[in-house]
């Protein structure tokens, strides 16, 4: 593993093709093995997310599961003060969408290796990280900063799973209030739009662009299908079956063809079974 990096000599940074710098990370100072973190300045084509300013954000790959956000923040504080840390399962451009949920209502996260976006206060910190020597490993657990893993962590998790009833109720109430408000707003808007469609005093209707055409076509997939099916049925009902001689002949022909097809299918099935020696009874 280490052979490739030894080439770069001691006290040097290690940069691999693709532009990533490699940092090593140990769980504790007496650990024998270490993981490699791959870091790079965050760069995307379109500035879509204001939470990750391009110049100050560091993109980190391979963050081990025992490094939660607070630990990562402290680990990287040695390069300059950290503004925020965001850990993700996969590299992703967009942050969460949808309404804000309280922590207890979010589904459980996967506890695997993560991808991190670290936003520093200063842009200089990013380059400081990138030039960090490969053979000086970052250490996760120190005396001042114990990291709970294993049984200790699970007991803590279990303890935290007790949510006071009042807090739970409050979260629910808050969310539902918020939800009701949002719903009211949406209804308000709809009503407005409907009003706009109403005839004006002089009998004119204001025609606007946008999704008001929904009236003309069914606005759900299911309804779409239903109308299609209805039309098909209509067509079928009007057709005459087995009326002309040729139609009758055709059905007979179809019947024989079906028998033939079944026969061929069975033959093939048998051939398959024979090939697998399925007929030897013992």
């Amino acid at each position, binding site marked *: 593993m280490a052979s490739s990096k030894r080439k770069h000599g001691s006290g040097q940074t290690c940069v691999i093709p693709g532009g990533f710098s490699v940092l090593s990370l140990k769980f504790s100072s007496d650990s024998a093995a270490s993981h490699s973190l*791959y870091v790079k300045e965050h760069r995307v084509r379109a500035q879509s997310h204001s939470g990750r300013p391009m110049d100050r954000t560091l993109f980190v790959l391979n963050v081990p599961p*025992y490094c939660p956000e607070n630990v990562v923040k402290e680990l990287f504080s040695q390069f300059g003060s950290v503004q925020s840390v965001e850990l993700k399962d996969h590299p992703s451009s967009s942050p969460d969408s949808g309404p804000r949920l309280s922590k207890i209502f979010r589904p459980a996260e996967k506890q*695997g290796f993560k991808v991190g976006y670290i936003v520093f206060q200063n842009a200089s910190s990013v380059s400081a990280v990138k030039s960090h020597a490969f053979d000086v490993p970052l250490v996760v657990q120190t005396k001042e900063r114990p990291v709970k893993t294993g049984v200790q962590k699970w*007991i803590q998790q279990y303890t935290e799973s007790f949510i006071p009833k009042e807090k739970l109720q409050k979260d629910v109430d808050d969310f539902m209030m918020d*939800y009701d408000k949002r719903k009211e707003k949406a209804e308000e808007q709809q009503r407005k739009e409907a009003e706009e469609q109403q005839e004006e005093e002089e009998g004119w209707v204001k025609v606007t662009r946008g999704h008001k055409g929904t009236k003309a076509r069914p606005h759900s997939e299911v309804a779409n299908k239903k109308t299609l099916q209805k039309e098909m049925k209509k067509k079928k009902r009007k057709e005459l079956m087995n009326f002309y001689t040729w139609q009758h002949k055709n059905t007979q022909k179809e019947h024989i063809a079906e028998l033939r097809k079944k026969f061929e299918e069975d033959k093939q099935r048998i051939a398959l*079974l024979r*090939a697998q020696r399925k007929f030897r*009874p013992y």
Partner: protein
Amino acid sequence: LVHIPMFTPSASSDEEDHNEAPTEAKRSKKGDAAVDDSNVLYHPVKLSRSDLYRPPTAEELNQLKEAESLFHCNLLKMQMEELLKEVALSERRKKLIDSFVQRVTKLLEAVPETAEVEISDLSWLSGSAKVPFLLLPQVTKGKFHMAPPSSVDPIGSYPLGTCIKPHVVVDLAVTIPANVLHPKDVVNQRYPRKRALYLAGLAQYLASFSDLGPMRYSCLHGNRLRPVLLLIPPGKDSRSSFTVRLHACPPPGFFKPSRFHPLRNNIRTEWYTGLQTSNSEGIEPPTPHYNSSILGDLLPKAHLQFLSAVSSQCPAFADGVALLKVWLRQRELHQGAGCFNGFLASMLLAYLLITHRISNTMTAYQLLRNSLNFLASTDLTVNGVSVAKDPDSSAPSLAEFHSAFQVVFVDPSGHLNMCADMTACTYKQLQHEASVSMQFWDDPTVDGFYSLLMTPKPMIRTSDHVFQLCELVKLQSSCKKLNLLSELMDHSGDYIHTTLPLILSLLQQGLGQRIQLLTHSLCPDPEWSVSNEPPKYKTQPPISFGLLLRPELATSVLERGPPADSPKAAEFRQLWGSRSELRRFQDGAITEAVLWEGESMCQKRLIPKQIITHVLKLHADIPESCLRYVGATVDDVIKKGSEVPSTGEEESLVVVQAFDDLSRKLWALEDLPLSITSVQGAHPALRYTQVFPPVPLKLDFSYFDREKKSKSLVPSKDKPCPGIRWSDSVLAVICHMEGSGKWPHDRFAIRHIRAAFHIRMGELLKKHHNYSYKPCPTHLDVWKDGLAFRIQVAYHREPQVLRESLTAEGMLVVRDNEEAQALEMATIHKPLLTSTLHGLQQQNPCFGAVCRLAKRWLAAQLFSDDITEDTADLLVASLFLQPAPFTPPGSPQVGFLRFLCLLSTFDWRNNPLVVNLNNQLTGTDYTEIKNAFMASRESLPVMFIATPKDTKQSMWTKRAPSIQMLQRVMVVAAESLKVLELQLMDGTQIQDVRVVLRPPLDAYDALIHMNTNQVPLLCHAVDPPGVNFKRGVITGNAKASSGVLPVIDYNPVSLYLTELRDAFGDLALFFCDPFGGTVIAVLWKPKAFIKAPFKTSQASARSVEVTGDEAKTFPNVSAILEDFRILGKGLVKSVEAKTEKWSF
């Protein structure tokens, strides 16, 4: 120990590679891996238009019509034709046989003559050949000399053309010249002895020709009076081997058939016992069996003539007999003493033909069907039949035959009962098999061909309970006890077959209504070398008896007899001896009764054992030590409890009752904003299939730490992990609420409303019933009577809401997604499965126990993550719903064996397994399922299980197993089945059924050993450790439901496994026995260990290597192994890396 090769690493990660047929493992086991079938795949038939619609010829039309009308599927017709091809003798082999027979015939004609000596004088025999006869009593009168046979003729199945593979036997009748015999020789075993001497003479003569191959003696259908000489030609390959059987026969018509009337005596008591008997008034007991054994020698040529005449009239005769023989062989009825052999099968068909029950133009398929129909409907033990058209006046009547024999089927001459040695039980078994076969033959939902002709039915897999009589020498004393001297004389000292019918009738009486059927194994024909003395009777292998139980009656502890004053009472007392006592019942009646011991279900299941032991000891003097009862040996692995051992039925019942009570209380809650529409269980324990059902327990509060605010109990850091039996057993309950406009139409809002319901429900339960509870957004935990329930509120439209989304144009689209599927699974399918299987348990009392055994095995072999609990339950359910060719399992053990058999032999590649829950599917549904399956095989799960609610997708097996794991499961199941059946049927093997529960660990790449004190279910381990830890539990009854919530759903091992799979799931597979396993086995995925170019999406736990300007990554194994330790701190004892193959 079971040693099974692990699948090769190259195969373990190509999950997409479906091209390998799962049957390969099975086939390579059979040893004919020569044909590579992995290329033969089913492709939907595509006929060109011109092929399909060309005008049919008359012949083709006929063929198609015949296939349609004669067989409900022409597949079956073709299958039978293929089968016949497989068992038919090849021309090459026939030539080999003919030339060998010719040579033997020629040699035999030149047998040298010897001087005449007394029968008892054996000096003319050199040591190379012994007499194949037990000379008891030693002396009999008469003279004997060797002479060339007057003729040598092939007889039996070979000349008739009904001989089939394997074990091809060619019979040759060597006719003893008339001057060697004397018409009076029928008396006192003189003729049988002369015959044996004659065979010894032949053997001695033939031994000088070394190219004939080894010679052995055997005896015909286990009858020691009728020895035969076996010639086994030396063959290069065993495939073309055959055996030539020499029978010595008297010249036809040498003895008068009337001498062998079943009521006549041919063995004198005085000669047999060697005593001057006092009652020498001349009333000698009849010797029917002895008579028929000699008569049988007199007639084979006549029989052959008769059968040839019949078969020449009916073109399908030979094929019909061949099918019937295959059918008999799969049911182990074709050989041994008192069997229904191929000869009887031919005779049966001949009988049906000459009585015009079947016509000469019928096909083999119809012949088989009609003969099975005849067997099923005719009881030859009561109404015997005769092939003889017009027997002469001296022939005995059927009534006379019935008085001497149990089963009567008279030959064409009218003198011989061909079923003389058959016991009534064997015939009943035959009848039972025939009627079972007829039942499923027409069932379109059963693959008739496989059940009928391809599935072997060994006794251990057919009968619910099996026991063996070992030390057969003890039967001698039962002969005395039962006063069977004259019968013993009739059987010429064969005390086993003398006592067998009586033992059978005793058992039948004792077991009575508890059993449907009593069967016994047929003693195999002994074989011994010509230079050895014949083996004694006592060297015979043990006789096995099989019981087919009536589940509803078999476990009753009470045997209620007649009222004390009824005349039948004496009979009852005689049968049960001192066990019978007068008892007064609740209805006021005072009757004789026997009460057997048994508190728990697993003890009650062994009541037949108590009965058998008692009856045999009392009446036949057979000590308990001779009995080897293997009815419930396998149950040990799920047996718990020290005072009253139990296999979980009682515990499950307690759980189900607690659930019913909770459900009632939930229904009664009034102050909920919406009403409840259903309360359903969704946990294996609520359908009686949880391996170790939770037991209500009392807590030791001082054992736990307390959470600061709510004072709830939490596990303590320094003490062993708490919880013996509840950690894995939070009983899921799904509670559907009524639909209402009040429900929001938004996924997040629904989630919050559900949480509100959980809180409210918990509060109400606390208020009214004082249950402690713990509300969570996803569920509500309730602690009731020492059991933990997890209530989950469900809204029936939620999956729909999850599926809906708005496109940019404002169109509402419905797209299936995993979240919705998971929710439907949890709130709809699982509860439904639970209630359906709960119903199945009500019909089949041992269903749950079979599931428990099956799941214990899967877990112990580390497969529980691949074959999930629900899948395993469905597999077991299929054994009960579609037992053909068996009957539904009547004991956990037989169910478990069939489960292993199903796993190891089912052809998952080409067939869907249809589990017809509640019998909702019809024949057409089956065809539809099969067609849909065939059409899109490649995209469907490797293990496809269809249920009435799920015919297209096999949702239970969608995630797992992968093809590699399924293959491995099949191999391990086959091996376990082999080991287990051998152990159960052979008392000389090491008796330790846990062998099949110890997985081979040497095939894995790394092992993570865990601290035993942190493994909560340690006491359920396959081999529980001697030391046990205090785990915060006090023994005692836990009825008080008050108090604080205990530690629920805290299992360090499963938490650890989740973390490992989250972090390293794409690099390795993790296996663990959830029931007390202390080792996690790790298998690297070979695909992950191929060096890959550096990608941001695939950098996890990998280190990088730079060559030139290319960066490649591979797993950082040393860091990963260290992570195993870090993530499981406190739980992991050591990490053992077993292989070096991943270190590049």
